[in-house]
């Protein structure tokens, strides 16, 4: 049965009509036009649909729409900083690091990968190698072999330490 779900997306309160059996991924992509999160497998195995719900990385394809009620969701579209005085938002340090370190090839896994990295760095600002690998193990990438993605996450952690958080 259709149901209206009220929650916050990227800082904005929204109210979306979700179809019967819809998951959060469909709500975001079809209900809100936020197509950054992708369906890579529909079974919670590839991580391409990763979004943050109350700060935790979740597979949106396994997240029932009604469960989003009252929660705070962050998608890849909400990650770039918003300029105060108009103009283009700067990239989040993790996004910038991905660009600078060659961590993006076809880009299909990128939104999910970036958000998994953000969830990691938010809860563990100085992760060791094993922690980074474990945090990203649920995001499959077929193009990069992960090496430059890991470099990017290390660099982003470093950048966050050097710049005071605004």
């Amino acid at each position: 049965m259709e149901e209206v779900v009220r929650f916050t997306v990227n800082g904005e309160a929204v109210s979306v009509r979700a179809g019967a059996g819809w998951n959060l991924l469909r709500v975001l992509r079809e209900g809100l036009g936020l197509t950054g999160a992708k369906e890579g497998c529909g079974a919670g195995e590839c991580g391409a649909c990763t979004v943050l719900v109350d700060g935790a990385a979740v597979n949106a394809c396994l997240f029932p729409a009604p469960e989003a009620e009252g929660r705070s969701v962050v998608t890849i579209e909400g990650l770039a900083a918003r300029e105060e005085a108009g103009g283009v938002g700067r990239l989040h340090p993790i996004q910038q690091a991905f660009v600078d370190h060659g961590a993006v090839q076809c880009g299909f896994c990128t939104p999910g990968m970036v958000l998994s990295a953000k969830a990691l760095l938010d809860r563990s600002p100085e992760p060791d190698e094993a922690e980074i690998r474990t945090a990203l193990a649920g995001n499959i990438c077929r193009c990069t072999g992960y090496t430059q993605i890991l470099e990017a996450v290390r660099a982003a952690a470093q950048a966050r330490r050097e710049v005071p958080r605004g």
Partner: protein
Amino acid sequence: MADLCAVGKAIPKADAGEKVVGRSVYVHDLVLPGMLHGRILYSERVSARIVAVDTAEAEKVPGVRAVITAENTPEIRFGFLKDNTALKKGRVRQYRDEVAAVAATTPEAAAEALARIRVTYEDLPAVFDPEAALAEGAPRLHDADAKGKPVKDNRLRLPWKVEAGDVAAGEAASAFVAEGEYEAGWVTHCCMGTSGCVASFDTRDNLTVHSNTQIPSLAKNDFQEALKAMGVKGRVRVVNTAVGGGFGSKLDTYAYEYIAILLAHRTRKPVKIVFGREEEFVATSPRQPTRIRIRQGCDREGRLTFRDISMVLDNGAYTSWGATTPTVMMMPSTSLYRVPNVRFQATCVYTNNTYSQAMRGYGTPQVTFAIEANLDELAETAGIDPYELRLKNANQAGDVTPQGFRPVTCGHRECLEEVAKRLDWTAARARPRSTGRKARGVGMACLMHVGGGAKIYKSDGCGTMIKVDDQGRVDVFSGSMDIGQGLDTVLRQIVAETLGVPVDYVNVVVGDTDVCPWDVGVHASRSTFVAGNSALAAARTVRDQILSFAEEVLEAPKEILSLRDGQVVCSEDASKNTPLEKILRKAHFATSGNTMFLAAEFFEPATDLLAGDFKGNFSASYAWGCHGVEVEVDTETGHVEIVKYVAAHDVGKAINPMLLKGQIYGAGLMGVGYALTEEMIYEEGRLLNPNFRDYKILTAADTIPVEPVLVETDDPAGPFGAKGIGEPGLVPTAPAIANAIYHAVGVRLRTLPMKPERVLAALREKAGEP
């Protein structure tokens, strides 16, 4: 070479900024007004007569706009042997056969309609092994070829044979011979973006296909042929969305694309078909599986004397590029190392298994596994160190190989030496074999691949158009395609370097056949070389136009003028140096003469299309590489840990070292998965593991420490000396690892993947245990 400003720099990928904020539009994201959702009904049987297809109930489902079968649509044949049809009529030959399709207003309605289609089958015998399919009395997959000519057995009439020198004489002159059979099963591309397209007709029957194809120009031809078969007189435009990975999966056209076209024509609405992940595993074509027999020998000093390779290939029920992998397998078979007497022969046989496609390496990973693992076995028989044996027989620049390849530059020796040095080879090999639970060993393997395109089609060329506007902004229209590898960026760098403008001033346009010139496709690691050379030629032509104009304005001969740092620079009189923009605007506002700077060039490598005896020079340059691995084998679990991995590659010139390393890392990990963990498990034609849970693709937790070594041999044929790199990174991974495992624990694995169960079984067999 003079100081380079853009080429050789590790600049970010041109579209990384879009992808990292989720703005890029993949076919999965594309929505067109009035768009319908298409779904395909696949066969429930592996081999059967289709007795009846009842779509009456399906047509009644609310929201359904069309239900099609082979009975109510014109026949569309495709594949290079044209033995496949978009919808199957009268008979199914594999589980992925397309029996019917629907288009509906919602995905739910389409799924509901599919569930209500009733198909009645009558089982037919099936065969799942190519050798069995060759036997007398085996069930026949096809009764006639595409032209209707009767076919008497399951063997494809393909002439895959090449021979040079005298193999018998070579064997007679051998002091040592090694023989073996090496097997590699099905693995698949696992692109994160699944297959899909949106087909749409306008009111005059012109077709647009929004696609993620790797072959825009050839796909356009294929779709034009389909329209002809449909009796439709419109033209075709192929437009690429962002591509979620290729790796060879999109080098042919597929049934689902023709089905989308049929549905779009039937409904007069755009129709989108996008695969789910299970469908992607089952209904797309994987890497060609192989069972390869090899004999090779050397004399007492370790000089290779002959190599003889043969194989019977499982072609599946229909034919795609898997059947042509032998034409590329020939390359390392005849030409990796200096071997004077060579023979290669492959037979392709129809079965009721899935049919195969191109996949990164195009047969070379499979045959290189056989060659390089077997070479280590030969080295052991001969009592020669495997590294010494390889060095002794290394290819050299200026060689003409038995197949007629003419490498002008060759980094084979340097790659071998780099690997040996970084693995501390002699010391590592001298260490006694461990008797503890975990044992370490080192191994190496080489590769030889095309580096300058591959003439496997009448043209191996690429066209480019360039225009420079009055502000100095440049648009480059290339027939090639960015599939994530970085072609967009490499072309920017080449053009920026040639025109002396900032990289950000160069915009690369690819993936629209209405606008971009012809290219044969993104395959054979050819894009940097061929598309790069094409863009370079067009950039030089437009540079010449600009300098000819500048000659008049600055009153200085063209020969002493150049473009650099956004300026027209006069080498003999710096006072004449002028900002490029000024010259361009002067031309733009001129009242007569050439006021536009536009150029178009087609680059065709001067190479040979191999046919008949398969001899000739089929690439404009060749790339070598060597991978060296240190493994640690857990003798209790069979798990193989990669402790050190050196990937040395002869790249000609690294136009963008960061993106190039991305190819080595990515191909390397794909190659490790190929070697150790990935397999599609089929049982009587049915895929048992069509998901990421049971198909073991490597994750970030499995990242291996690849140390890329770029050997720059500066090939004169390449743009700024570059050779291709897209595929080489996974060609030698399996034999390098197999050779290291042997060094560690003394077991020789000849079947991929070398998963823990197989390692353990081999260890037990060696220990004499049951």
